[in-house]
């Protein structure tokens, strides 16, 4: 699946230039680096485009009936769950940052389940349509909503091919300090940006590992030594609606 890797960055030339420079500066021997890639960025440093975060999901390992990733996201970011404060909204209106989707092949009856969330596109349609610039793609590829400038027009929800975004219809209470959410704004998976900034992994990936399913791998798509890049090279990873050419950061195996 070398095709997939080629598509990881449409500005491949730029990436190769950077990679060459990094290798020249830090590599003392093939595969041995002076700097550890696991070190978290310092809290006062701006996020850069040297990394691009992504998740590779192996649908063969994703167990039907398990929704550990969904409930972990609910707990982490304070949406849904038993103490859902969206009391006046119906199930379709309530926030849904990540959902389990079941695919069934009609001919064979073979069922596959997978978690579907914001795919963190390289060219996100939600960012294209946003009239205020609230919907934006961070330098490291995480697609976010700046709720301070979101006017709640919901164009992005219309534009998203993955139905990944939700709109908050009512006053909320007791939000998490690390995941502010509020009435009149659109929200979606943040790839647990508050954890990622501290060198952590998203809550869904962690929960999947805790269930011993290990269907999700999180990492830097630009670092060829990262687990996700190595697995992508070995097994490949498909984009959902690859025909749209969005170059998603979330990839799937086995679909």
């Amino acid at each position, binding site marked *: 699946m070398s095709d997939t890797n080629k598509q990881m960055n449409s500005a491949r030339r730029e990436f190769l230039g950077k990679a060459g420079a990094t290798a020249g500066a830090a590599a003392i021997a093939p595969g041995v680096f002076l700097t550890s890639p696991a070190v978290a*960025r*310092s*809290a*006062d*440093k*701006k*996020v850069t485009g040297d990394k691009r975060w992504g998740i590779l999901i192996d649908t063969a390992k994703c167990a039907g009936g398990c929704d550990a990733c969904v409930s972990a996201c609910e707990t982490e970011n304070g949406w849904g769950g038993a103490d859902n404060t969206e009391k006046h909204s119906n199930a379709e209106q309530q926030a849904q940052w990540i959902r389990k989707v079941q695919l069934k092949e009609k001919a064979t009856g073979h069922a596959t389940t997978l978690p579907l969330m914001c795919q963190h596109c390289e060219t996100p349609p939600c960012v294209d349509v946003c009239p205020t610039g609230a919907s*934006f793609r*961070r*330098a*490291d590829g995480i697609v*976010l909503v*700046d*709720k*301070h400038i979101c006017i709640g027009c919901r164009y992005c929800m219309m534009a998203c091919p993955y139905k990944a975004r939700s709109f908050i219809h009512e*006053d*909320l209470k*007791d*939000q*998490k*300090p690390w995941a*502010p*959410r*509020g*009435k009149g*704004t659109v929200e979606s998976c943040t790839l647990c*940006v*508050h954890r990622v*900034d*501290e060198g952590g992994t998203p809550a869904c990936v962690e929960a999947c590992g805790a269930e011993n399913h290990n269907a999700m791998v999180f990492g830097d798509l630009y670092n060829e030594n990262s687990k996700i890049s190595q697995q992508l090279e070995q097994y490949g990873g498909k984009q959902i609606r690859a025909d749209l050419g969005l170059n998603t950061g979330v990839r799937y195996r086995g679909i």
Partner: protein
Amino acid sequence: MSQSFLFYRVPGVLFALLLMVPLASSADEEGHRLPFSDLVKTEPTRHFSATQECVEPEDEMKRNHMNYILHQRDKTVHDGIRTRQYSLEECINCHAIKGEDGEYIRVEDPRHFCASCHTYASVSIDCFQCHADIPVRESTLHQSQSGNVDRSVREKLASRLSGELSLQLVATEVSVNE
């Protein structure tokens, strides 16, 4: 003509003056009250030093706290800068107070640190429609002060912020103090 006018008007004017007597005396009492004197005093749980109570000098924070929070907000959301110095969460962690029942006071209560001024000044802030108005997790401000954030960076930011934003008021006050 003018005589009859006075004859009819004078008692009316006297009566009106009589009515104003109690009003005038109460206005006199009210007149001695200083602005903000009915504010509930809320004290932060932590002081940074004997001379500096908050992350910046108190006068600076009183006038420009909103600008510090605004800058920090954009840096955090767009650039992923998560220093704790001007983080709204740390404002809350430090300034939150508990009521008689031992529970933290929410922002709807005028005793809440932010509400205590904003209610009086009738300034409607919408921070807490999304953000937590009470402490949720332990403060990590001390960590960023000692480790993560270089002191020079913080000072640079502070001086830049105050350079950009301080009102002339601050400058005048400084010169008066000197």
